[in-house]
């Protein structure tokens, strides 16, 4: 896949660079996912609980082979 070049945006990372897991990416450090943590922290405690509960219920439904 190739992307058109745009001299006006020459300082901007290419889409390939944006999508590639860059070395030292602050979002992913040694297996920890800062983006996920920031997203979780952005939720209210009630939403955090609902999200975690829904996740586990979904996993269990998948394990049991039920359609969800």
């Amino acid at each position, binding site marked *: 896949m190739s992307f058109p070049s745009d001299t006006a945006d020459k300082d901007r990372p290419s889409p390939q660079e944006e999508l590639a897991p860059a070395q030292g990416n602050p979002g992913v*450090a*040694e*297996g*920890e*996912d*800062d983006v*996920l*943590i*920031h*997203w*979780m*922290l952005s*939720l*209210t*405690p*009630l939403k*955090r*609980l*609902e999200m*975690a*509960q829904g*996740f*586990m*219920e979904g*996993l*269990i439904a998948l394990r*049991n082979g039920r359609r969800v």
Partner: protein
Amino acid sequence: MDVASKTLETLQLLVRHGVDFIVVGAAAAILEGAPIATLDLDIMPRPSPEDRERLLRALQEIHARYLDPAGRHIVPDAGKLDSLRLHRLVTDLGPLDVLSTIGNGMTYDDLSGETILHDLGEMTVRVLNLAMVIRSKEEANRDKDRAVLPILRRTLQLKEGSST
């Protein structure tokens, strides 16, 4: 076990029965913002005769019984609640662990000053703060505790960074 803990419903039940308790363990970490998962809810009730009776009434309502490998039907009672450190229960609302201590013997009184009130819509619950959840898991030092410690520590770092 086929059901995850219906955590919100269990908390509502405990609040409705007037039980004074602290949410501890993985559920506390989730409420504090850590992106982890758990199948059960861990609570530490206030060790008073009044709260023990309220807790027993709540547990009866959801048909709590001990998770017994031999399959026996053993229900919690006042004597057991007073004498055992850990009550691993199954209920109509899923697994529920009732603890009198966590980590290296930290009690309700030790932890009551280390809690945060979290608003969960129609109720407010007391939740062990993330730093103390981390400490309790460091002290417990089981495989499952060590497995989540990196993400709990990173969550605490980011929380503290965002609050300054």
